[in-house]
């Protein structure tokens, strides 16, 4: 087993001898069949309890996926408590109902809501991330999040206005700021992550995505214009079948091709974003390596899409496992010190009172 070698390396590092760097890959042991059974029982219990069980279902699902994710022979663990999640969901639901009622009675109140939302969003982001990280452990050591409200306000809202002021030119920097805020403020035990990917990389793939996206949209509108607007033989209230009649089989094939191209652009963006984001993490002497290939991700997503369509959604558990497996198995750690070097901050992993308080305040908003 390679775990013993890693621990040996860890010991060697602590005795300050120079060691070669080691590559430790993530491993994902979940299977579609196993997840299918968990998923379907979760679904049934959620339906018969009118949605209340969904909080328990979420914990089971996350525990299954975290527990199936292995690094150096050890799995991650999710510690979220269903009641905390249920509470969070009830709060969200209550706020939503209040919002609906208020805007229904005083439509202009929407204008008042905007500043409230602007100030609430960073708070929600901090709380959700904090909950997520504190509820995650690896080798009995919890993750943590040190992001501040001000930091979230600047990264998510402040930069948003800067992007508008610069007519969107610096959009990639905004994306980088958000990723840097979320990942750079994360910590494993007492060791805080550093985020080192520069702006250049974000500019490159964001602009490439935008260019490809414009091409796909252009093709879509050309097709619509040729078929739809030039030759409206049908009722204005158009159903999908009417559209099929309108553009014919050739048009339908073109439409399908364009849809595939659209999925591909999204896949390219997701792969590039994951590589730039996770690949930019440094934890102590350890670097994260993320080597997703856009073509592989697109292939998985397109085949997933077909699988879902032809099984009327039953393929879902396999689809989910495939995507996660691809992400994880193309991510690895490049480490010099070994994974044994991290330590807990005093009490953070073991203080039961802290955990209870955490459950009370750190509601999970299901983000």
């Amino acid at each position, binding site marked *: 087993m390679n775990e013993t070698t890693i621990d040996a390396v860890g010991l060697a590092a602590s005795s300050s001898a120079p060691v070669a760097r080691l590559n430790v890959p993530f491993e994902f*042991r979940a299977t579609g069949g196993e997840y299918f059974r968990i998923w*379907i029982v979760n*679904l*049934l219990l959620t339906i018969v309890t009118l949605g209340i069980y969904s909080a328990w279902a979420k914990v089971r699902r996350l525990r299954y996926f975290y527990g199936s994710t292995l690094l150096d022979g*050890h799995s991650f663990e999710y510690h979220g408590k269903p009641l905390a999640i249920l509470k969070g969901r009830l709060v969200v639901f209550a706020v939503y109902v209040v919002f609906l009622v208020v805007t229904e009675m005083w439509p202009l109140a929407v204008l008042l809501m905007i500043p409230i939302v602007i100030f609430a969003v960073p708070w929600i982001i901090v709380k959700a991330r904090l909950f997520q990280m504190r509820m995650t452990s690896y080798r009995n*050591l919890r993750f943590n999040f040190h992001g501040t409200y001000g930091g979230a306000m600047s990264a998510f809202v402040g930069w948003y206005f800067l992007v508008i002021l610069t007519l969107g030119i610096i959009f990639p920097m905004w994306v980088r700021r958000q990723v840097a805020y979320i990942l750079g403020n994360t910590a494993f035990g007492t060791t805080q992550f550093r985020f080192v990917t520069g702006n250049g990389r974000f500019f490159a793939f964001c602009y490439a995505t935008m260019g490809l996206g414009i091409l796909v949209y252009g093709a879509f509108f050309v097709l619509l214009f040729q078929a739809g607007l030039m030759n409206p033989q049908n009722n204005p209230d158009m159903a*999908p079948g009417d559209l099929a009649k309108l553009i014919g089989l050739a048009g339908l094939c073109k439409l399908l091709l364009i849809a595939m191209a659209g999925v591909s652009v999204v896949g390219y963006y997701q792969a590039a974003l994951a590589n730039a984001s996770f690949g930019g993490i440094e934890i102590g002497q350890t670097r994260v390596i993320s080597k997703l290939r856009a073509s592989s991700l697109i292939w998985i997503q397109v085949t997933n899409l077909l699988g879902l369509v032809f099984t009327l959604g039953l393929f879902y558990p396999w689809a989910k496992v495939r995507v996660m497996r691809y992400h994880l198995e193309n991510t690895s750690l490049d480490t010099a010190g070994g994974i*044994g070097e991290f330590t807990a901050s005093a009490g953070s992993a073991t203080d039961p009172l802290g955990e209870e308080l955490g459950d009370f305040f750190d509601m999970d908003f299901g983000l």
Partner: protein
Amino acid sequence: MIAGRFFDGTSSVGAPAHLTLGADGIARLHGLPVRIEAPADALKFSERVGSIPRRVTFPDGGVFETRDNDAIDEARETLGLKGGKAWLHRLESRWNVVLGSLATVVLLSVAFVQWGVPAIANQVAQVMPVQADRAIGIGTLDAFDRTLFEPSKLPAKRRTELSKEFADMTSPLGDGHQYQLEFRNSESIGANAFALPSGIVVMTDDLVKLAKSDEEIIAVLAHEIGHVRGRHALRQLLQAAGISALAVALLGDVSSISGILSGAPALLHAKHSRDFEREADAFARQWLREHDIDETKFDAILCRMTKTAGQSETEAIDYFSSHPPTDERVRCSPASDK
């Protein structure tokens, strides 16, 4: 002896260890430099999910991690420890339970889409004010005017006559909708009429010409009023929202499928749209009967519209069609051409 690894919680260094749960009710870890033991009922066992490793948490925060789920369950049973939701794992491991769950979920989902969503949408629509309908249709007529329509070429006198008929029909309804009749000419649409949720009913010149009597026009208008009064546009929107919510609830969060999830309402749009047409037909017939107008006028004009549109009456129905087949809605007789 259960083999695993122990993490004390102060650092990420782990050590191989063995756990025993003795008959005396004491849990002991072996093979570690320090002695670690605790009463078995003070331990926290993580719930069993799939084949992921099991965690046994000691009172001081140390965690023993093992892949030997069966051994843990056996030891717990021997010691008579309760809880741990083992029944959930048993449900999830049995294929007959899984298949039963699957069948139930599918049945419930289908029933919900078939009856639940329309009923809920109807209830919600009833508590929403009429202004909501108006908000949906804003700008629609302008958009059609730019693309499909040109101004009506009917004589002004004819239009005034029909507008008056329409006003006579709608003013006693008193349902809060602002009914208004508009005339347009359109080469591409042919003889047709449609209603906007705001209460505007649009009729094409071709339809007015196609009608053999004002009563036939009134029959078509009654059908369109049925759409507005039944608040079909609002209910359509609410139903789409409900189905999207259901799809997301069932299939959650795979980013690659969010595309089809948003398409799910479109697939069912046609079915609900046909239901609304039937409802509007029923309203038209009821209205005609109440006002002593021959119901067959409705059949006659509908049949003629179908013919001029060049569709066969017994269309091998495409599942996606937004209207029910004409021969289901009306009985077309050769007489209707006269």
